[in-house]
């Protein structure tokens, strides 16, 4: 029961962190930090929030190795989807 209670505390803390980080994301977007920095900060916060959801709500932190292998492969292809058009745009459109 103590174990269940500690799980509940973790879920509550993750929930509160997600809410606070949402407010931080909106607040930072209101600051004049320049486009590059704004994109970097917003995506960093989103990635951190995403990792909280995946690790705690989806229990990825304690998941089996096979799922990690599956996700590493998927993330590699996901990144390829982002990087390939990005390199093309940066070398051809923005010269």
């Amino acid at each position, binding site marked *: 029961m103590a174990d269940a209670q500690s799980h509940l505390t973790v*879920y509550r803390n993750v929930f509160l962190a997600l809410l606070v980080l949402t407010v931080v994301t909106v607040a930072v977007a209101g600051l004049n930090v320049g*486009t590059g920095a704004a994109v970097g900060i917003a995506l960093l916060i989103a990635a951190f929030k995403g990792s909280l959801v995946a690790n705690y709500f*989806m229990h990825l932190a304690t998941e089996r190795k096979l*799922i990690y292998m599956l996700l590493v492969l998927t993330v590699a292809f*996901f990144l390829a989807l982002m990087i390939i058009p990005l390199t093309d745009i940066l070398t051809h459109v923005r010269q």
Partner: protein
Amino acid sequence: MEIPYTITEREDTGLTNPKLGIWLFLASELMLFGALFSSYLVLRLSGSSWPVQAEELSVPLGTLNTAILISSSITMVMSWVALKAQDFKKFRLHLGLTIILALLFLFIKIVFEYMPKFEHHHYMSTNNFFGIYFTMTGLHALHIIAGVVVNGYLWGPGSKMWKSEPEKFTNRIEVSGLYWHFVDLVWIFLFPVLYLL
């Protein structure tokens, strides 16, 4: 045909079949949304003009909907915790709240965001920004609807399984929860990308 390994884990994978199945499905979903995020990058970076997104969309409504989805994620996980603790009443309360929050998200999205856009004649065909905005949020909204249908079934008629096969039912809620958290996770990225940047 009975699906094997719904309660016990397979020796070779170390997982139950439904859990491996949902993760494979979520991997394919990541690529589906990835293709759209990639399209967004191409449209935004190679296009000559792009509107200030925060002026086109309502940041307060987007923030509110983010908070609603995050809340629905915690109620979803609580419904699974309740089943683990053999508390069926608490399970129904939390899954019911998850469904209500999902419907609230859809209500705000459709009534306060989509409909005013249509009234101002902003459609998918208006420009590249609205094209990708309606495509990405529309696909996400379809995922919310699918989640409501599945969770609605598990809350209502599907919950009869709790009496006959409680472990199998608990695993169903876990799998449905994995899908639901993924839908939340996608929105966590959609919100800053479409509303704030």
